[in-house]
């Protein structure tokens, strides 16, 4: 385990759950364990200078009272979305990226929560498969938590990977900024599991991505899981539009393609840093000296602060062209951008979310049209 914990709190009724037993068996000596009637109360912010940051070091094992599956919370009719389905197995993350949307999203329950009744998610997935047997789904666990952080403690992938490996129409996407892949290397994904890394240039990692693995370590981990039979994908999200970003992101892609051949990359995604004004305030309060939070961001039509349009779109084009020139087509898509932006970057309007989701699950190009209409 690479992340420190101040305490583990377990809901009384869940103390004999497989998850609780695994966590207690693997927990570092000296970490206090406490039992409570309702884990939701233990997940609330506690008084202190940084309740959100403190929450990250307090693991709460509790039963989830809501459905595990949901459409991606970033989805909206104003964006061209990727059909990503989210499986909520945990909430919050032991890493502490200064730009992270969780600073706003889980401000009211910032403890690192892991849901002990997660096998119920498997029933939900089976019901979803049966409701649309011809459809391909891409389901990820990395939206409200890093998929692999603490996996050495929770061992969730030991149940997840075999479950997905046995099903033909669902692809699991494990999204991470860590290199915690030890459990994955012991399992056979049978082509149904994809591991994706969020990648940022070294400068962004050093400035913003506190406690995350260095970019080179993430790429090296990707190479290892690829060789172990997993598919790999990369998210350049958020892209930070600082002075020198064009050069740094291009170099990052070159470094990636030096290690992993483009033909073996399932897809890449891009998304510029976008922050609601409330998120920016929260982030600035926690990281007042971080210059990356102070890009040339303006209020966009969706009410979020984003790098002004020509700058943001120029960065997308530079990255997309880098992949285009790589020698083998790497499918790409944009996160939380309008269809017109997709068209400017990739030369074609993206398909509807279900179709795009199915193609990404399958590893086919998200766009059909030739790229001569780009502007």
């Amino acid at each position, binding site marked *: 385990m690479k992340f420190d914990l101040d305490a583990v709190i377990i809901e009384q009724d869940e103390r004999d759950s497989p998850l609780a037993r695994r966590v207690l068996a693997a927990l570092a000596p000296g970490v206090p364990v406490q039992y409570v009637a309702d884990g939701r109360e233990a997940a609330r912010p506690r008084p202190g200078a940084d309740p959100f940051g403190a929450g990250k070091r307090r693991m709460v094992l509790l039963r989830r009272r809501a459905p595990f599956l949901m459409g991606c919370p970033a989805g909206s009719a104003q964006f061209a979305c990727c059909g990503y389905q989210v499986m909520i197995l945990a909430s919050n993350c032991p890493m502490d990226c200064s730009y992270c949307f969780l600073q706003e999203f889980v401000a009211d329950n910032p403890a690192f929560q892991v849901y002990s009744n997660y096998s119920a998610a498997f029933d939900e997935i089976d019901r979803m498969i049966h409701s649309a047997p011809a459809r391909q789904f891409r389901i990820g666990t990395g939206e409200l938590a890093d998929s692999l952080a603490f996996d050495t403690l929770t061992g969730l992938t030991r149940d997840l990977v075999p479950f997905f490996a046995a099903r033909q129409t669902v692809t699991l996407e494990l999204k991470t900024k860590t290199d915690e892949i030890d459990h994955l290397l012991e399992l056979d994904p049978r082509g149904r599991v994809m591991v994706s890394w969020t990648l940022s240039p070294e400068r962004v990692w050093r400035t913003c991505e506190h406690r995350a693995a260095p970019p080179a370590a993430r790429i090296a981990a990707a190479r290892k899981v690829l060789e172990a039979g997993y598919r790999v994908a990369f998210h350049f999200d958020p892209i930070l539009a600082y002075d020198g970003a064009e050069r740094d992101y291009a170099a990052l892609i070159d470094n990636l393609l030096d290690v992993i051949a483009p033909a073996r990359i399932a897809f890449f995604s891009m998304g510029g840093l976008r922050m609601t004004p409330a998120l920016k305030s929260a982030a600035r309060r926690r990281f007042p000296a971080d210059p990356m939070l102070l890009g040339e961001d303006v209020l*966009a039509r969706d009410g979020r602060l984003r790098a002004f*349009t*020509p*700058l943001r779109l120029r*960065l997308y084009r530079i990255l997309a062209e880098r992949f285009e020139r790589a020698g083998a087509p790497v499918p790409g898509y944009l996160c939380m951008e309008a269809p017109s932006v997709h068209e*400017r970057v990739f030369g074609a309007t993206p398909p509807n979310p279900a179709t795009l989701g199915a193609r990404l699950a399958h590893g086919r190009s998200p766009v059909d049209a030739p790229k001569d209409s780009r*502007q």
Partner: protein
Amino acid sequence: MPNRDTARNLDDAIRALAAARRLPESHLARWLAMDEQSRSVFLELAGAIRLRTGQIVQALELLGEIAVREGKTSAEILAAPELARISARAGSAPEQARAFIDALRAIRFPRLRQAAERLEREIAALRLPRGISIVLPRELGSDVLTICLEVAREADLERALAVLADRRAAIARIAVMLGGSDEI
């Protein structure tokens, strides 16, 4: 301890100005948290060009952000020639205050300012007649150009459409620039 007295006098003067302008406590705290020279330079400037409350708030926020971006103190930022000459140039205090905030924004958003100026020049080069205007999205916050036509008669409309058809390639080029072409 003359230095401590000077600092106390300076802070009293800042508090007095803040009280007179009903400056929010959070922004007064931000001002008082600056190093002594920065506090002093900003006080002098705020008085000289008679910044209003909203402008002091804006200026403190911009100065704070520029300081983090550029690793400079507010005094060093305020010493930039484009800011220093504002209080010395002719014009009314409100004009000077507006110019000061504009200049600070240009330092805070240098590439945005450059891109917007470049696009404005391209639009001006179209030499559109009265009644036709091309409006850039506010702060280049989207990739959508707005074309406005003012027409009273059918003939006005035909004339306007003919002008747009004539300038079509140049307008399309501006739309491409707005979408992040290499020219930005």
